C-alpha cells in the first residue's frame, strides 16, 4: 500500500463516518448524503484497487465523456426537482434548468443524432456539446439580466410609493390631531357650532360666538 492509497482510505473512512453520523442523528439531507456516499465509494475503490485509473484509461474516451455527461445531467435534474419541491426556485425558472439537464442527457445518449450536427457545423462531439451548453448558459444569463432590470425598476416604484404614502399618512395624522384639538376647545358649544371646522376664520367666528355667549351669561342677574 503506497501513500496515495493511504490518503484515499483515510478520506473514504472520514466520509463513511460523516454519513453514519448523519444517518444516526437523522439530520442528513438527501443531496449531501449522496455526495458523501459518492466520495466515500470513489475513494474506497481507489484504495482497494489502485490500478483502477489504468483500467479506466482503457475505456474509450467518448464513453467516459458520455458517462460524465449523463452524471451531470442527472445531478442538474435532481437538484432542480429538489429545489422546486423545497420552494427554493419558481417553476418558470426551473423549467430552463430541467431543459438543460434533458438536453445534456440527450447529448449523452444519442451520439449518432448529434453526429449530424457535428458534421454540419464542422465540430467534434465534445466541442459541440460545450457550444450548446455555453449558448444555453448565455441565454440564461440574459434572461436573468432582463429579470434583474425589471425587479430594480419595480423596487424603485415600490420605494417611491411607500415614501409617498408614509408622507401622506403623517400629514393626515397631523390634520387629525389639529381637528381633535379644536374639537375639545369647542366642547360645550357642539349644538350649533361645527366642531370639524378647519378654516381659521370659521373657528375665530365660533370662538367669538362663545365669548359673547359667556358674556351674556355673566351679565345675567
Amino acid at each position, binding site marked *: 500500500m503506497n501513500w496515495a492509497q493511504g490518503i484515499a482510505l483515510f478520506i473514504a473512512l472520514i466520509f463513511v463516518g460523516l454519513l453514519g453520523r448523519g444517518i444516526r442523528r437523522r439530520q442528513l439531507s438527501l443531496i449531501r448524503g449522496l455526495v458523501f456516499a459518492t466520495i466515500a465509494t470513489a475513494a474506497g475503490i481507489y484504495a482497494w484497487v489502485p490500478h483502477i485509473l489504468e483500467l479506466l484509461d482503457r475505456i474509450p474516451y467518448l464513453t467516459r465523456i458520455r458517462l460524465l455527461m449523463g452524471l451531470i445531467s442527472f445531478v442538474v435534474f435532481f437538484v432542480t426537482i429538489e429545489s422546486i419541491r423545497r420552494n427554493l426556485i419558481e417553476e418558470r425558472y426551473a423549467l430552463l434548468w430541467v431543459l438543460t439537464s434533458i438536453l445534456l442527457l440527450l447529448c449523452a445518449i444519442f451520439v449518432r443524432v448529434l453526429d449530424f450536427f457535428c458534421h454540419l457545423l464542422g465540430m467534434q462531439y465534445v466541442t459541440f456539446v460545450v457550444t450548446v451548453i455555453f449558448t444555453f448558459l448565455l441565454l440564461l444569463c440574459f434572461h436573468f439580466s432582463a429579470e434583474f432590470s425589471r425587479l430594480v425598476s419595480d*423596487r*424603485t416604484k415600490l*420605494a*417611491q410609493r*411607500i*415614501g*409617498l404614502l*408614509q*408622507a401622506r399618512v403623517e400629514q393626515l395624522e397631523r390634520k387629525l390631531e389639529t381637528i381633535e384639538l379644536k374639537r375639545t376647545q369647542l366642547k360645550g358649544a357642539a349644538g350649533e357650532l361645527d366642531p370639524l371646522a378647519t378654516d381659521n376664520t370659521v373657528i375665530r367666528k365660533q370662538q367669538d360666538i362663545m365669548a359673547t355667549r359667556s358674556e351674556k351669561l355673566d351679565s345675567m342677574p
Partner: protein
Amino acid sequence: MEANRSAFDNSISPPSWADMVVIIPAFNEEPNVGVVVRAVAQNVPGAEIVVINDGSKDNTAEVAKSSGATVIDLPCNVGVGGAVQAGFLYAISRRARLVVRVDADGQHPPEEVPALMRAAMENEEDLIVGSRFLSENGYLSSAGRLAGIRLLSLFMSLICRSKVTDPTSGCWAIKRPLLDVFARDYPSDYPEPEALALMRRRGYSFREIPIVFRPRQAGSSSISKWDALFHAAKIMLSLVVDRVRYIDHSLDRPKMLERMRREAASDGAVGYNISRKV
C-alpha cells in the same frame, strides 16, 4: 422683486409661492440638509419644501423634518433619479404648478431659487436650468471635472440641438406638462443629462440662466475629480443609447398639452400651468 411681480399678474391665474414645491433629494446629507431647508424656506416663504431621503444611513430624515420640510422617506436607496421622481410624484399629488429641484449639499444657493421660479414664470420654456458657467464668478470645479463637463456640454449641445453649458446641473425649475412626463418616465443612471436629451426628443424646450454655485458645505461629492473624464464618457455612451431607445410618444409636448387642457376643462382645476403663448 416688486417689478417682477407684475409679470406674474399677466399670466392666466396669478401664482403664489404656495403653488410651488421645492424638492431636495438627499442621501447621507445630515450636516447640510437642515441649513439648506431653512435657507430655502427663508427665500421662498410659503412654498412647500420636500426632502426625499433616499435611504440614508444617517439622520437626514429627522434633521429635515425638524427644520420644517415635508419628508418622503424612501425605504431603500433607489438612486438620485428615483428619489427626484418620487418628489415629482408628490408635487403632482399636491397639484403644484412649478417644481424647483435643488441639491441637499448646499452647492445650489437657496437665494437663487426665487430667480429660477421667476424665470420659469416669465419664459415659455418648460424647464429652466441654473447654469454655473453662464455667470462670471463663483465656484466652478476642479480642472479635471471642468474638462469632463466641457466635453459633455459640446456633445449635449449637438444632441439637444440647443446650447447646453451645464449638462450636469441639478438646479432646475420644471413646469407642468413636463412635470407629468418626468413623473412617468425619468432616467435613473445619469438623470440630469439624460432627462434633458429625452425631453428634447419629446419636443420640450429649456432655457439656461446664470447661477452662482458654491462649494459643498460638508462631506464629499459622489464623483471624485480623477474619474471625471471617464464619467463624462459613460454619460455620453448612455446618451447615445437613449438616442436609439424606443420612447413613448404619447408623452410628446403637443399631446400632453392637449391632455392637460382636457383635464382642466373637465374638473375645473386651476392648478395647471399652461404657458401664455401656447
